């Protein structure tokens, strides 16, 4: 494969960048690990959102730009409902709402557009995002709401004997990581071990072949969207409890784009790995690369986080467009 060297070059550069702050001693080890962990935690959150993307794309070839808006909507629903009822009831109710919402999106927006190319679908889901944005805020209000999972918010100092000063970690982050892992495990089991899961994988591989063995395409798509809705809910609850539920949550969806590009649009594993890489890369770039650039170019502050993920995705697109785990696409004329 003649593209090999550029992939390795990119990978090598990233690795060097990752290790540099430690190697040059520019940062104390404890702090470095904190940043690393912080990046991993953010990465987990990105992965959750990207999971929703990957699921839908895998099964139907549709790029659901509206995933972020769905996350926000779900989070808003939970936050507001929880004001009137116990949290777990709110979550159940919100799950129901999300599943219905997902079904509606599939029915009203995507089914009619089934024959158009990806770009039209992208723009349609963009439209859905705008709609959900406005609708969500009309229905649930536009203040910042809180989701209280009942987990202590104070960070905890661990490993004080190993690293000087110890490492500050958040209990909530651990819970988030655990939940994400449980979700992924559940999804993997679902896809590999159940008949429905097999049907979903068949549909993802080849729509027509799946139909010809009697798999009801439309029902499968509804299931996929429902699952994506549920994933959006989980992501929404976790994000919401961390950051508070606010408008900028839908911007999170945009960040998930580079994640699926790195990971490969159709890969669950890719969504996880991609999310972690982006999370870590972003944090590292902001904390370590940022000050270097500010000094070198006399910049007004950091903000590297805002574009790092996208530029990284762009580079990946140029050297390895199918992502780390995606499938190569051969065009036959």
């Amino acid at each position, binding site marked *: 494969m003649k593209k090999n060297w550029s992939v390795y070059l990119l990978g090598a550069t990233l690795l060097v960048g990752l290790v540099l702050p430690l190697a040059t001693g520019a940062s104390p080890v404890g702090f470095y690990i904190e940043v690393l962990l912080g990046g991993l935690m953010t990465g987990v959150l990105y992965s959750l959102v990207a999971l929703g993307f990957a699921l839908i794309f895998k099964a139907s070839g549709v790029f659901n730009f509206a995933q972020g808006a769905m996350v926000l909507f779900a989070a808003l629903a939970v936050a507001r409902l929880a004001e009137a009822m116990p949290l777990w009831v709110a979550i159940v109710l919100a799950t129901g709402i999300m599943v219905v919402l997902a079904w509606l999106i599939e029915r009203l927006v995507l089914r009619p557009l089934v024959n158009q190319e990806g770009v039209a679908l992208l723009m*349609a889901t963009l*439209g859905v995002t705008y709609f959900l944005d406005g609708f969500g805020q009309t229905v649930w209000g536009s203040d910042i709401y809180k989701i209280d999972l009942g987990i202590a918010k104070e960070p905890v100092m661990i490993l004080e004997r190993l690293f000087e000063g110890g490492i500050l970690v958040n209990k909530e982050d651990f819970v988030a990581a655990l939940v994400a892992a449980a979700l992924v495990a559940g999804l993997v089991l679902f896809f590999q071990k159940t008949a429905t899961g097999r049907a979903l994988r068949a549909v993802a591989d080849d729509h027509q072949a799946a139909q010809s063995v009697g798999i009801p395409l439309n029902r499968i798509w509804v299931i996929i969207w429902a699952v994506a809705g549920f994933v959006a809910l989980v992501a929404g609850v976790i994000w919401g409890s961390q950051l508070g539920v606010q408008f900028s949550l839908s911007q999170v969806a945009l960040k998930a784009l580079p994640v699926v590009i790195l990971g490969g649009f159709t890969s669950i594993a890719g969504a996880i790995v991609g999310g972690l890489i982006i999370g870590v890369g972003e944090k590292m770039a902001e904390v370590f690369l940022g000050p270097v650039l500010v000094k070198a170019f006399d910049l007004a502050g950091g903000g590297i986080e805002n*574009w790092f993920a996208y530029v990284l995705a762009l580079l990946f697109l140029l050297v390895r467009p199918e992502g780390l785990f995606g499938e190569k696409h051969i065009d036959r004329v």
Partner: protein
Amino acid sequence: MLYRENGQFKSSYAADQQMLPILQDRLFMAGLLAFAFVVVPLVASDYLFLSLINPFLILALAAIGLNLLVGYCGQISIGHAAFMAVGAYAAYNLALRVPQLNFLVVLVLAGLIAAAVGILFGIPSLRIKGLYLAVATLAAQFFMDWLFARVKWFTNYSPSGSVSTAPIEMLGWTADTPARKYLLLLGILVVFTLVAKNLVRSHIGRAWMAMRDMDVAAEVIGIRPVYAKLTAFALSAFYCGIAGALWGFVHLGSWEPLAFNLNLSLNLLFMIIIGGMGSLLGSYFGAAFIVALPIILDQIPLWLGIPISTATASHLSFMIFGGLIVFFLIVEPHGLARLWSIGKEKLRLWPFPH
């Protein structure tokens, strides 16, 4: 029967290829231009200029730019406001550091700088398409956001990050009233629309459309994909750069880096989806729609006597935008421009049913 072409035979290819081959269209256009240049400045109010007409003119220009790339050449871009930003900051710096330059020269130079940046960010399009290209254009958007916010030279070391401009002055004539600004914008828009129309009818336009419709076949008939795509990016960025400069100088007066953010990019995209991709007229329709909608939404509660808070109005406009995007994509992917030409077809038959 008013709109029939009976008796209007073309006896030369030049006549057949005119922009407005039908006489009634030519008369209409002449009337429209006369109205726009002579009547409007005399009757329209300042408020109308500032809130509706002037932004419409500038955004129509930007929409034409985006349409060249997306509608005619088929390359997606959801970060096009970045090129408007380049144009605006380039114009600002040129006007600041080389004050002797005539403003029109500044505009063209700013456009050329934006075009160069456009070519740079168009390079990924040589390897990737569709959704992937969309993400690459997002990279452009966010990177530019950051660049103009952080690299202090661009804002002339302004402590707040904002820049402001003086009213435009050319050859002794100052564009200081809304009506004068309007005339300046109108003149620029007419010229650039003409240029766009010429390009689209010419072999570069056909090359773009061929790349959009079937790029493998386009290559096979001898069209160079690199040239076609990069010229589309360059011209599109040129138009948007000039629009950006006008937006900053004429409409906003002063702006902060986030004036050209993702929201604006998405608005531009919505303009051409609703207005009609691959149609210059559609760019106008789309721009008019997007500019007018928030204002209409604000006014409706007053007319109906129902009070709606500004926040709700803004949420409603989001919902309506989103709903309309989906609606147009499903029902009429060619947008308002197609509805317009269907209307014209009906008019040709009127008053007969068929």
